């Protein structure tokens, strides 16, 4: 009898697993989005807002990204992975914060309202969300790495949580859309030249000494993410970082964007871009 019971339980467990996997699996799409707004935030940063003219945008999670097709670029060939900056379900819009990093991203500067933006999305996993609204999350961004944290913060706000942002840049002019971030939570700032907020790097900000968080999410240049990961490890706070290894397919097929992890080389585009720092082999 005992065997029959165990067998039944096991089968029930299997069904639950299958249902869970089905819910977690997010279908990917290739869409011709239409640009609805273009805003040049600074010399190096551009905000592109796009809608899906044919249907509702697919389900997307904070931390996921899109592979944007680059048209009319003589020097580049591949798509560019750009994180989801925000998703406005009411307006059926998705926003991308783009840094002019090279000729590929620079060609996105040519987009105008009404232009087509071909995107493959949503790709990758995404950040861990709070288990309850009471949990205190610190979202740390540097440079263009602040982009996915807005979507993350907005989703937290939607569930009743209040995230804390810690955003860093070279100087005041590179701090992007601070008011929008302030609409989702508390915002603290560092600049390298001291032109806004505390002078220095995000890892030197006083809030790290004065407050304790349940979890830290980081996106930015690798040295900054490593420093934050090191801090999180030293204070014993769970921490996730979003990597941006150079990629080709974005679907886990070409194995170009691998990161060396506890499980060997894994694709950042598929198993990431968000990783728990415990999984990475960083020397921190």
């Amino acid at each position, binding site marked *: 009898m005992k065997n029959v019971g165990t067998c039944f339980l096991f089968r029930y467990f299997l069904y639950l697993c299958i249902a869970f996997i089905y819910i977690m699996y997010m*279908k*990917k*799409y*290739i869409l011709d989005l239409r640009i609805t707004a273009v805003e040049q935030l600074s010399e190096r940063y551009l905000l592109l807002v796009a809608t899906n003219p044919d249907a509702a945008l697919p389900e997307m999670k904070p931390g996921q990204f899109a592979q944007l*097709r680059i048209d009319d670029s*003589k*020097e*580049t*060939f*591949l*798509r560019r992975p750009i994180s989801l900056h925000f998703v406005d379900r009411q307006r059926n819009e998705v926003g991308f914060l783009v840094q002019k990093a090279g000729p590929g991203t620079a060609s996105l500067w040519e987009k105008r309202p009404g232009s087509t933006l071909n995107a*493959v999305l949503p790709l990758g996993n995404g950040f861990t969300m709070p288990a309850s609204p009471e949990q205190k999350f610190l979202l740390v961004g540097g440079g263009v790495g602040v982009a996915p944290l807005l979507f993350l913060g907005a989703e937290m706000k939607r569930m009743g949580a209040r995230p804390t942002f810690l955003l860093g840049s070279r100087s005041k002019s590179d701090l992007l859309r601070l008011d929008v971030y302030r609409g989702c939570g508390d915002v603290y700032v560092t600049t390298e030249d001291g032109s806004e907020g505390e002078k220095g790097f995000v890892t030197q900000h006083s809030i790290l000494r004065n407050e304790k968080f349940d979890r830290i999410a980081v996106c930015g240049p690798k040295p900054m993410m490593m420093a934050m990961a090191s801090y999180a490890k030293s204070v014993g706070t769970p921490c996730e970082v979003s990597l941006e*290894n*150079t*990629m*080709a*397919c*974005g*679907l*886990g*097929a*070409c*194995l*170009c*964007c*691998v*990161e*060396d992890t506890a499980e*060997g*080389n894994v694709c950042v585009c*598929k198993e990431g871009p968000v990783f728990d720092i415990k999984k990475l082999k960083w020397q921190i």
Partner: protein
Amino acid sequence: MADLRVNIAGLQLANPVLTASGTFGYGIEYQDFVDLSQLGGIIVKGTTLRPREGNPYPRMAETAQGMLNCVGLQNKGVDYFCTHIYPQIKDIRTNMIVNVSGSSPEDYAECAARINELDCIPAIELNISCPNVKHGGMAFGTTTEGAASVVKAVRKAYTKTLIVKLSPNVTSIADIALAVQDAGADAVSLINTLMGMAIDVEKRKRILSIGTGGLSGPCIKPVALRMVYQVAHAVQIPVIGLGGISCAKDALEFLIAGASAIEIGTANFLDPTISVKVARGIDEYLERHGFSSLKEIIGTCE
């Protein structure tokens, strides 16, 4: 609709469009975008007898009309393939072909023998042309003796359709093709990537972790087309053409040059739906020119 069916040494394809190894994962990665049953076949990732971690990052460098890669055959080995991946792909309703690589003729033969046992894998593509591994790979594909030795060993162990993928990094690809034909290959596919390099001028350093990599994409198409033409005129076995094919017109060039089927590789990264679009485009071309069957145009280049 024209008759797009083609037979590659006993392997029946619904249409001549296959997806190239290493660019389409195990097919599963693309099933949100493509009805996989609309393809002639899928050639899955390079599989080796033992697991391989591949080369360190960075493995990719973009070029103006293509890309370099030095992935280095990262895969979990043939046993993992048989127990974990095969069950997931065996019901996909197209020809699932496994690309097999190794570091000795015995390795290749052992790996091929394991795959021979899998009912739903009707063919293998023998990779004697990977430029990104130190031992084996391209080392076998650049001499007639080396190529023949691997094909002979595998032929003894493998009973189904045996396709051999050739390296373009040779003086005479037609000679290699003839050698593998004589050693028992059922078909050849060409070309694998061309060996290349990229340098970061700011750091004055080679970009790829192992220094060199294989070039793919539209930039290699004219080279590939010339080689397919030469090989198709040299051998009696069917030829599968690949190298920079990004649209139906490209595919038609290869078919007219003498390829019985084609593979789409790097173009899958730019448009994950390109493979089925190419199949449709070939059909439209045949209709437009009044051909009732694909066979009427293969190798018809004047």
